[in-house]
């Protein structure tokens, strides 16, 4: 009992000292100590959230119509799958539940060895869908390209085989094509298994803030440059014209960039919800994020660097800003945070613990606001309210992701690690064009 009282008293004293320290800072000192928080990502993210909140308040979300018009163009949903025997049935079920009335489903088995192909054939015998089975693994891009060649729809929806869709997702994706400038539409990814562990809960918050709110913000500004492979819709002819998907990791962002280069816009369908299974272990998460983050160098810095060239025939300022935004947040920001950490550690060694504590409190306030905004805007995520409980450790999760990002960037800049990623099968990797 005495120990507990002692610990409690110590904590109170410590917090009192921290508050006294923080309140004792003058304006200049406050800016000097918390420059990273005040000038790096927080204003950008807070502004983005407020902007989306404003849109939500004044530009009401489009509600699915009670009945569809008679003319509903055919939409082809292509689902490439590799060893997804356990989930493919769920995918098909969610597709069959779609409210959009004119859907063609194509399943592509990319040489699975766990009976996925057999399950697909079984599903094809029961439901109205088409199946193509590769004799040997060819890679996700090849599987999608086969599906694309089989597709008859005016629009193509590409989705992952470990994801499921809400009933109205396809309609919410397709309705954006009423605008002829739109070439592709990004769906809204959420975490399906957020109740699995703390790690998946943290990812659920990240998806809500970064993939949902931030993409909506970027789409409204016309600088969205990625349609996730897990859920996205394309004009079939346009996707065929850019040659379909190219092999290797980041094939989805690569195709989207090529569509942007043709002068088309990328829309974000916030109500087109796709629930995807997030990694459940730290190792799997690291592998996934390393693959994602390497694409920044592979696709944006190398393969499509002509986006930055004003002499480029299809140069667009929005595309350049889109790339610059990505570089700032994905590359420069982690580096600046590293610099900030070193700066504080060496320049304020005595107050480092107070700085860290205050930073956590500030982040917690910021994150709580942002998360609540996200939950308000994305009504579907009310069930995520309990996730606010893991917010105190969310900054550490972000720090962890930043470290992964820096590692990935280093790997790609110096070793072109993405070209060794088993995302593409060996025979394809051996022939891939290296940028």
């Amino acid at each position, binding site marked *: 009992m005495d120990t507990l009282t002692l610990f409690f008293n110590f904590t109170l004293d410590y917090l009192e000292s921290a508050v006294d320290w923080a309140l004792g800072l003058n304006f200049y000192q406050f800016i000097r100590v918390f420059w990273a928080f005040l000038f790096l990502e927080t204003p950008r993210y807070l502004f983005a959230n407020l902007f989306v909140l404003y849109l939500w308040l004044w530009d009401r979300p489009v509600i*699915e119509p*009670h009945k569809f018009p008679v003319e509903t163009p055919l939409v082809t949903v292509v689902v490439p799958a590799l060893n997804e025997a356990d989930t493919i049935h769920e995918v098909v079920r*969610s597709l069959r539940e779609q409210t959009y009335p004119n859907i063609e489903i194509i399943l592509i088995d990319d040489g699975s060895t766990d009976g996925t192909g057999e399950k697909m054939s079984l599903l094809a015998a029961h439901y109205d869908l088409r199946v193509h089975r590769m004799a040997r693994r060819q890679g996700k891009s090849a599987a999608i390209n086969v599906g694309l060649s089989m597709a008859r729809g005016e629009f193509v929806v590409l989705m992952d085989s470990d994801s*499921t869709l*809400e*009933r*109205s997702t396809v309609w919410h994706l397709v309705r954006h094509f009423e605008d002829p400038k739109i070439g592709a539409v990004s769906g809204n990814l959420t975490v399906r298994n957020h109740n699995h562990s703390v790690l998946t809960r943290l990812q659920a918050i990240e998806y809500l803030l970064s993939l949902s709110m931030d993409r909506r913000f970027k789409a409204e500004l016309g600088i969205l440059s990625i349609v996730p492979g897990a859920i996205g819709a394309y004009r079939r002819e346009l996707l065929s014209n850019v040659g379909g998907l190219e092999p290797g990791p980041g094939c989805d962002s690569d195709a989207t960039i090529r569509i942007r280069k043709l002068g088309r816009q990328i829309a974000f369908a916030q109500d087109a919800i796709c*629930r995807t299974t997030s990694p459940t272990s730290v190792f799997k998460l690291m592998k996934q994020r390393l693959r994602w983050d390497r694409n920044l160098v592979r696709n944006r810095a190398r393969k499509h660097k002509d986006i930055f060239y004003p002499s480029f025939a299809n140069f667009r300022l929005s595309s350049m800003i889109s790339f610059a935004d990505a570089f700032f947040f994905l590359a420069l920001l982690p580096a600046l945070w590293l610099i900030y950490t070193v700066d504080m550690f060496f320049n304020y060694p005595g107050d480092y613990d107070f700085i860290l504590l205050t930073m956590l409190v500030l982040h917690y306030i910021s994150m709580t606001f942002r998360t609540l905004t996200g939950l308000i805007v994305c009504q579907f995520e009310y069930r995520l309210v309990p996730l606010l409980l893991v917010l105190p450790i969310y900054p550490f999760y972000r720090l962890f992701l930043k470290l992964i990002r820096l590692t990935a960037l280093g790997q790609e800049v110096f070793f072109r690690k993405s070209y060794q990623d088993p995302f593409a099968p060996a025979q394809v990797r051996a022939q891939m064009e290296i940028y």
Partner: protein
Amino acid sequence: MMLPTSERYLGLLKLAARNPQQLLSPVPDPSALNGFSFPGISELGISTRDAFDDLEQLAELGYVDRQFAERGYFCWQCGHHALLFREVCPSCTSSNVEVGDLLHHFRCGHTAPETEFQDGVRYTCRKCGHQLRHIGVDYERPASSYLCGSCNYVSTEPDTACLCLGCGQRFEAERAELRTIYAYRINARGTLAVTRGELGDARGAGGLVDTEFGLYTFTYFDERLTQEVAASKRYKRPLSMMLVAFDPAEFAPGSQDIAQAMRHLVTGAKESLRDCDCAAMFREDCLAALLTDTDANGVPFALKRMQTAIDKTTDAAGAARLVLQPGAVTLDESHPTARAFFDDARATLHRLQSGEPAAEEPAPSPPPPAAE
């Protein structure tokens, strides 16, 4: 006017005998009680229903043989073929049931047919007002269900019931009567009855000798034919048959006693046959002769003998000579059964009588056989 039973029977047998396959096959006829009728029945003045009853009776009596034609369910009460098999509500037996999935809304636990949740293209829970958006997340389809539009009873499996469009009776599907519809093939006994023009058997259809002509009965002939065909096939013995049609009116023009004239001709023809041959009257005007141990080369000799005997008869009666044109066939591999063998002979005779060319000329026969 209702025909006497025996006349109906004979009419049906004649109708069967007229058919090239000697078969009365039922054809679909929605207006008939059991959905089938026999072509040509109306000419006989027999109703379809009576025809089926009579043919069943003839089958029982042994004049025709049954052959499977169709099988189906009929009204247990009136025998009508037009039954509506319907899925009905187990509670009120109304057929106003619709199949649909049951939906289970996870949030409030409401479980009801899909139709109850349908709100345009959306699903809205009537209990809690929330929208169902994602299968496996918001809701599930635990099973299919049947919703009765009359009493709102929800069942996982409906009952099956019948509605007879003939009598309007509604009954459980299990009570529908499974019945077989047959085709009827006239057999030897039936053929004999047609030949004789009566069902009764004064000369003993089941006996051995036809006392009128001094020949075997056709029943015996039929039995003997079966035996001889079997023996010939087993021991590679030749076997031939002739069907000779006589026209008594040509033999005795203007005669009132056609039967007497026929007896003269048949008696004459019979004299030409060997003791080992078997002969019987196939129809009133046709002699069937089974020529044992006679191959295709021997048939012309047998015919020549018969022609000579007939010539003697006509000469003796001072009548004009008759030229015989028998339907003659020799057993070979194209005749798998005695019935096929006999049918071939009949077809040959029919062709000759109708003036059609023979299907195939018999092979030339240099060495005449030593047939008796």
